[in-house]
């Protein structure tokens, strides 16, 4: 008899506050599993964002720090520079990272900070009630774009992974998704590689995870996974955009 799957020690026993079917739970678990497998639970320091994941410090079983809205990479920079032997990660959503925190993420990458960022992109502001985010798809209805997002008025959705991949300070940049078991496994692998990039001091690392928001998208959790695959992946292509080992 062998255990195929049990709850990781990388997470506390506290139950998630997320809505039913929200993929934040999957991504939390993958980060926790990677921290446990790399034996980093005593050495990792996470930085929680503002947004739905604001309570992430209750869930990860390692030291955690809260940051002001969008400023997680700045706080992580400070923690890492003071404690360079620790593994430091920021966990951010798209309203946090791609909107109010764009300056912080771009410059953290630009400076080549040895931190890892988990970027959860669900194309909407979840916590505040489903407003349009910079990552919202063209035509997508939100509470602040009730007739669908219009490119003439608000521009096109921002592709963060591609943008950061042009920066020399970035070591590892990859976009993944959690819409089915195959991609969930790939996501875990990418998160692990990002942490290894940090440990090997190969530069800034970020994993962009395409995620769902069933509540604010107005769909069932199952339909949301389908909507992600059909609408988000064609615009936000999955894959690696920067890898320190391939360039060497």
């Amino acid at each position, binding site marked *: 008899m062998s*255990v*195929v*799957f049990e709850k990781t020690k990388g997470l506390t026993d506290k139950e998630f506050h997320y*809505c039913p*079917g929200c993929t934040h*739970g999957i991504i939390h678990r993958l980060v926790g599993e990677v921290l446990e497998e790399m034996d980093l639970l005593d050495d990792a320091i996470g930085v929680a964002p503002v947004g739905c994941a604001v309570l992430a410090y209750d869930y990860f079983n390692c030291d955690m720090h809260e940051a002001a809205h969008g400023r997680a990479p700045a706080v992580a920079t400070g923690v890492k520079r003071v404690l360079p032997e620790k593994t430091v990660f920021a966990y951010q959503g798209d309203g946090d990272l791609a909107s109010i925190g764009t300056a912080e993420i771009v410059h953290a990458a630009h400076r080549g900070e040895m931190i890892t960022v988990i970027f959860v992109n669900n194309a909407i502001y979840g916590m505040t009630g489903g407003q349009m985010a910079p990552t919202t798809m063209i035509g997508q209805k939100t509470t602040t774009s009730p007739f669908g997002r219009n490119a003439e008025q608000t521009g096109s959705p921002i592709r963060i992974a591609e943008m950061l991949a042009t920066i020399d300070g970035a070591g590892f940049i990859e976009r993944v998704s959690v819409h089915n*078991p195959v991609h969930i496994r790939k996501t875990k692998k990418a998160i692990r590689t990002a942490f290894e990039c940090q440990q090997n001091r190969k530069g800034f690392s970020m994993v962009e995870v395409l995620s769902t928001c069933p509540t604010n998208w107005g769909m069932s959790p199952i339909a949301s*996974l389908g909507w992600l695959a059909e609408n988000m992946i064609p615009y936000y292509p999955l894959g690696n955009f920067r890898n320190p080992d391939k360039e060497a």
Partner: protein
Amino acid sequence: MAKARGNVFFDSDRCKGCELCTTVCPVDILAMNRQAINRKGYHPAHVTDPEKCIACGNCALVCPDLVISVERVA
């Protein structure tokens, strides 16, 4: 090679009834238990035919709320 056999366990009070696990089971033995209501007020997921489980772990992999654990018995 003998067919793999497994057991699935549910921490039912954590379940939020999102039904994602029911979509990824290759032997289609997961369903929502309409006869039960958990502490949160949802119909929790359960196994309809435990003998058929092949211990693939897909259900636990896709569960956002850490409800499911899986063991392999053969």
